């Protein structure tokens, strides 16, 4: 027996689902959705879950992650109930619910808190960044009561905690995915297939590309590199590329290697890709080119803006290194770059960014339902 919880609508509203009470379950949204399938019935069913307050059904679903928010459903909705923003909201709700500390809930539900927290974290990070310049007065003062090792270890612990939150989040998600009666049967022999399915999806965003192939669509006739799927692809692979390049740089312990060095080339290309993706994504959101871009939550903006700043400052530094400038401005840029990058990593488990983990996990699990 499922208990109806009418207060849940209000809870979801805080995650950005505002008009879904108007839904009268006509199912137009599901009918027009290019991604809904027999085994994955959304958005209508999920709006109903939200209305009835069936939280568990939302948390144990793969469907939440199968949607790419193309906005077709919102366009087709006769009640202006906004199925696409609703799906985005329950994704936020899922991220916040899987994450164990409750920090995500606070960040998503309260914009002032999110701003305050990010700024405070930035100040703190900036403060400790002085330790990179051991001779500076501030550094000396810090080292006075907190030795370098402690700072170093503290950093490691913070990164560790972020990682732990993510791991627990994924475990929580798995626990939900495999609860209830309709859980998929796990079979070892299907594991390679599942991996291939996820990698296929990540490589070329096959599902996302389904979203905007309608002939009368806004995107019809526009070159592929302007399509939302490619924007998303650029951000995703740009970021992964940068991550790999940074790791390689770190391994070789010498960030000022010559520009032709493969890790540097990778970094430059990935950076360009990410800058392109984030710029376009923000541009589309500002211009509200389609329904999909009409409702952007603060957490979405923050994520995009952070990525953009990280990319922009990264390039700045790249150029600065090439022309060997050591101005104060460059140093400030360096600090900003580092702070933003570190915030992105630290807040990975506590932001929209976490979908980068949850979506592949959901896809992996969905393969077993599908096949």
């Amino acid at each position, binding site marked *: 027996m499922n208990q*109806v919880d009418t207060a849940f*609508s209000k809870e979801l509203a805080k995650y950005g689902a505002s008009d879904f009470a108007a839904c*009268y379950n006509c199912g137009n949204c599901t009918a027009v959705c290019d991604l809904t399938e027999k085994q994955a019935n959304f958005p209508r069913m999920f709006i109903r*879950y939200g*209305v009835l307050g069936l939280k568990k059904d939302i948390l144990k679903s793969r469907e939440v992650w199968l949607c790419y928010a193309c906005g077709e459903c919102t366009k087709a909705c006769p009640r202006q109930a906004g199925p696409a923003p609703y799906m985005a909201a329950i994704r936020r709700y899922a991220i916040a619910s899987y994450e164990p500390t409750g920090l995500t809930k606070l960040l998503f539900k309260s914009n002032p808190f999110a701003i305050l927290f990010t700024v405070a974290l930035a100040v703190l990070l900036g403060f400790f960044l002085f330790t990179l310049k051991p001779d500076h007065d501030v550094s000396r003062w810090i080292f006075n009561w907190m030795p370098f090792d402690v700072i170093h270890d503290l950093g490691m612990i913070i990164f560790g905690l972020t990682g732990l939150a993510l791991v627990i989040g994924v475990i929580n998600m798995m626990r939900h995915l495999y609860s209830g009666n309709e859980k998929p049967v796990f079979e070892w022999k299907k594991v390679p297939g599942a991996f291939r399915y996820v990698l296929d999806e990540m490589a070329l965003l096959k599902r996302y590309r389904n979203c905007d192939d309608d002939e009368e669509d806004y995107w019809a006739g526009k070159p592929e590199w302007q399509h939302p799927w490619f924007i998303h692809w650029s951000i995703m692979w740009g970021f992964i590329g940068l991550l790999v390049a940074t790791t390689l740089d770190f391994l070789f312990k010498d960030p000022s290697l010559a520009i032709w060095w493969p890790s540097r080339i990778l970094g430059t290309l990935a950076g360009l890709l990410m800058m392109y993706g984030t710029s376009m994504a923000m541009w589309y959101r500002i211009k509200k080119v389609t329904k999909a871009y009409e409702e952007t939550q603060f957490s979405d903006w923050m994520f995009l803006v952070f990525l953009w700043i990280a990319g922009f400052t990264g390039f700045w530094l790249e150029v600065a290194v090439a022309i060997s400038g050591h101005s104060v401005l460059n140093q400030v840029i360096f600090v900003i770059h580092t702070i933003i990058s570190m915030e992105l990593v630290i807040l990975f488990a506590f932001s929209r960014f976490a979908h980068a983990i949850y979506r592949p996990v959901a896809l992996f699990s969905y393969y077993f339902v599908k096949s």
Partner: protein
Amino acid sequence: MGNQEKKKRIGVYICHCGGNISDYVDVEQLRDMMDKEENVAISKNVMFACADSNQKEMVKDIRENNLDGIVVASCSPKLHLHTFRNVAQRAGLNPYNYVQVNVREQCSWAHSDHPDQASVKAAGLIRAGIQRVSYSEALEPVKIKAIKSVVIVGAGVAGMRSAIELARMGNEVFLMEKESRAGGHVAGWNSLYPTGTSGEELTRKMLEQIRRIPSIKLFTSSHVTNVTGSLGNFTVEVNVGSHGEEVLKLPAGAILVTTGFSPNIPDEGQFSYGLSESVITLPEFKKRIETASGKLNIGGKEIHSIAFIYCVGMRQSGGPNKYCSRTCCTSTMHASLELHKKFDDMKSIHLYRDIRTYGKQEVLYDQASKQGDLFLMYKEKEPPVVTVEGKKVKIEVTDHLTSKRKLEVKPDLLVLVTGMEARDDSKQMAQLLKIPVGNDRFFNEIHPKLRPVETVINGVMLGGSCQGPKNITESIQSSMSAAAKINALLCKDSLEMEPIVARITEEACTWCGKCAEVCDYDAIFQMETNGKVVAGVNGATCTGCGICTPVCPVDAIEVAQYTNLEIESMIDGFMAPVKLEEKLAEAGTESSAGEGLMKEYPGIWKEILKQIEAEPLTIPQIAQQLQQESQQITYHVMTMNKYHILEAAGMDDDHAYFLYTPKL
């Protein structure tokens, strides 16, 4: 009586009804046959007897040929009796020297599968009509003088509004109210959709108006105890005062019944009604919303979530209340909206069977769903299960929108949406007024569409929800139309009534009283004439039902237009042998299939036969080959099947369609 002269110049018109009759009944042969009948001056076929041009021709015929009686063999007299009576009147013939014979409903439609037999029957009926018209009498309408006063029973919105209108139209109005105050249910209601006016204000304004009109006399705490008389001259006996202190006899030309409804009360235990303070009905709930302020406390607790179960005691496929009460969906939506307006932090959960906020009221449904009300549909066979424990309510219901998931709702309050029922005392009222009630126990009109406010008793009209569930607008609409109808009757100096009534042969009557005993309408009375006690008939009350004629031991009573002479002659006419010419042989050259009276197949039939001659085909196949709509072909194939021109010969491979082959 009985010594009338037979009519000598009768006109007979046999109508094709554009094929409705002539497709089956051989109207041409009948015309020739009737032409040869005794006393028939002219016999004609007409495509549509009721058409203007034909009516004009009939008038001309009557005048030119000096006809003294006419027969139209066409459709049911219910449809066109008055049309042709008027034709007769326009031609200077008494309208009662006209007889309508129904050969459409009784012959061509009823016996379409035996067209030859239909023709024989039609011949008999038309001959009976000719016989009847030849003995028909010229009758004059019964004229009575009407009292220009109306008794309205029930001073709810319907009664009050129509009282005002009737008074304005110059009638004296006696407005009866059983309760100690006028206003009915509406007086107790708060804000009304869509104006927001309260029921109290609405009824108060009407009452103020009534008090300013001297020709309206309002009697509260009054009961109707007896009704006698008939249209134009009723006497309504009323007890006034809570103890019946005063007895009044009110004269009334007409009576308007606006007694309203009773709210349905659920049985004890139905959806746990009566078992907990947290389960109440919608009318109770609305009262509570009105009286509460600040916070809504019901049954000793603060209310924030309310579940409504709709259609309680209504739309019962197995129970007595099969009807939809129409107003409750709207009322519930309205209550939910008011609730949200008045109190903070409220949630409504609607457990409904169908939402019927018809017409403009749909806006309320839209608003309710947009304010976040939750809607859960249930089926009659799978009603929500309610259990209560003290003040706690638990409802189990299946949600069809999440693949029939079983859900549990725990609202602070459960409201049972009950509808309107006929009043318990409506039975007595029906007996007093001799008006019929339906299976739903509400009063019945004569015809729901054509005569929606009149009852079978002349001069007794219905208004408002005593006739069936209605909202305020509809109640007032119906009572106003009843008022207009009443005024149309009473405004004339004298009322003309159908003269088809019983009459007494005074020489034969010995006054045994049997006729008076059986009369349902108290139309027969004892009287003395020429020193002899005989029965008399009140022509205004008599409906011509004829129940009195067979009980008379001396055959002294008969009904105009249904005299023994007329009926017997009709039987003679009907029983005379009919010989139709065999048409089968004549047309037999075209095709060997059994044709009945069909002279030649329509072109499309020939084409269909050609198609199925080689091999049996299904309807879609025939349609495809003939490049025709399959609906068209279905129609023709079915007709051909009926006439045994073709027949089914098994099914196609998919077992989806019949194959047809010519029937030889």
